[in-house]
């Protein structure tokens, strides 16, 4: 297992280099640059700016310069947020996104698995239909509708919670955003769990256990749950990454200073260094999370060990 982990982490390096290369190409192919603004920049000044940020160099040299800088842990300076380095921006946004995304994923895992399992065990009954209907609210009602509805109900109507903003991790500002993200993720997890659970409950060895007269709760918890969780865990990977890095709608509805806003503003403003810095972060997260998921396979399903 350690050798496997080590090999995977090693492969992460070329993966990262490829991702940076791809994003570089995409960024430079997009029309418009970071200095295009309503007020036209005078030529002499444009030349200065390009030289200052090495944008007058050929692409391959810029790429190498960036990698060299990256190796020293320096993600560069932002264009859009000109007073801040990308390191500072990521350092201030990451904890916010991690907290909100992390809490949401944990909650949606617990609730989603519960709902899906219940629906599977009471298949085709009213319990099944109702549970799935409730669970699916988050995917059927768009987040940019659900969010403002939550705000209308709890912040403005009942005045229990603030309608947005962020104040140094105080819990009141976290309740609504975490709820929104959880609602969205629960639906996916619940449906996958249900389908997976149904398959497992119909498999031969579960049937054997039932035929042998084992009590239901033992069957579910000791035999069915582990293999049923496999697809859930698979989907958790990308879901966790996107909850942390792409929760843009949640962040803009609740005005949270997270990574999602940085990613979109970076792309819209052609802020090359910011986008690349975020991409490095996202790649690291993706690699790490997918590695954990693959390691979980071995734990959950011995048959999949290579």
């Amino acid at each position, binding site marked *: 297992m350690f050798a496997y982990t080590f090999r995977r982490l090693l492969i992460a390096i070329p993966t990262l280099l490829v991702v940076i290369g791809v994003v570089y190409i995409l960024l430079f192919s*997009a029309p418009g640059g970071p200095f295009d603004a309503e007020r036209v920049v005078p030529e002499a000044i444009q030349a200065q700016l390009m030289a200052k940020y090495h944008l007058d160099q050929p692409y391959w040299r810029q790429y190498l310069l960036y990698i060299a800088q990256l190796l020293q842990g320096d993600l560069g300076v932002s264009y859009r947020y000109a007073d801040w380095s990308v390191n500072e921006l990521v350092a201030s946004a990451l904890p916010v996104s991690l907290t909100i995304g992390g809490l949401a994923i944990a909650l949606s895992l617990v609730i989603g698995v519960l709902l899906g399992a219940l629906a599977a065990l009471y298949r085709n009954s009213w319990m099944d239909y109702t549970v799935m209907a409730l669970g699916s609210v988050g995917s059927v009602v768009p987040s940019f509708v659900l969010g403002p509805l939550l705000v*209308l109900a709890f912040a403005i109507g009942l005045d229990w919670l603030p309608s947005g903003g962020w104040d140094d991790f105080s819990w009141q500002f976290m309740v609504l955003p975490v709820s929104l993200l959880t609602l969205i993720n629960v639906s996916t997890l619940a449906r*996958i769990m*249900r389908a997976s659970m149904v398959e497992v409950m119909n498999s031969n060895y579960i049937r054997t256990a039932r035929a042998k007269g084992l009590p239901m709760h033992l069957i579910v918890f000791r035999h069915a749950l582990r293999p049923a969780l496999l697809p859930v865990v698979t989907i958790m990977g990308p879901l966790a990454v996107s909850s942390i890095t792409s929760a843009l709608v949640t962040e803009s509805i609740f005005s949270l200073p997270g990574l999602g806003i940085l990613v979109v503003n970076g*792309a819209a403003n052609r802020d090359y260094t910011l986008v690349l810095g975020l991409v490095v972060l996202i790649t690291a997260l993706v690699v790490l999370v997918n590695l954990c998921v693959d390691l979980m396979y071995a734990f959950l399903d011995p048959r999949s060990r*290579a």
Partner: protein
Amino acid sequence: MHSLTPAAEPERSPWRDALQRFRRNKAAVTSLVFLIFVTALCIIGPWLLPHAYDSTDWDALKLAPSLTNSHFGGTDESGRDLLVRCLVGGRISLMVGILTTLTSIALGVVWGATAGYLGGAVDQVMMRIVDIMYAVPYLLIAILLVTVLGRDFYLVVLAITAFSWMDTARLVRGQTLSLRKMEFVEAARAMGVSTPRIVFEHIVPNLMGLVLVYATVTVPGVILTESVLSFLGLGIQEPMTSWGVLIHDGAQMLDSAAWLLILPALMLSLTLYSFNYLGDGLRDALDPKDR
């Protein structure tokens, strides 16, 4: 759908079995009927209604729905009839939703099953490519596609497929890793069945249940992503519309003209719920182990 497990009872085709099981699932049947109804309504409806989807009426702005005038669904802030726009928008959303889901599922299944079955270095490389696709922000891909290929409607399908296939691929690969150790696969290999046949005739059918369910999970995301892209100028253009666009615009008018949100949101939600129940029903019906 055949496997090497012993046949059930003689003289009963597995398809008829599946149909029977499907019919027993009331929610799934209702959903199928509803979906057919909605699709027909979206295709034929606009021809039957008196207004065009793009005819503005500056004297009839933001009218509430009523049965007395010809605007059964009310009008939007440019005086356009809401009902006909919902139906025309439905055409786009359904088309994008179904087409994109089909292509991304197809790509994901082929990719994941191949990686999972072949294993080793091939698996590693294929899955690292998946990692790379996850890491690249989809906004950039979408912008580039529009820049390079122009503003065709089918581009939206391409763009959304480009970053939706990875989830299916990972899901399928995971399942394949478990399946390839099962006895029927070993038996097929012992019998000398070629690798592509094993993958496509033995492994994939056993995945279909999960994949079907995941397909219905994909549809809503696709429909909403289309509206985000259109909003950025990368999808359909005004005056053409879609449910996602209508809902996005309607959400802005919640205080003053709630019907602009409620009608398209209702249509979208009911359709998506139907896809969900249909997917679950199909999964249950087609599961060979479900007796």
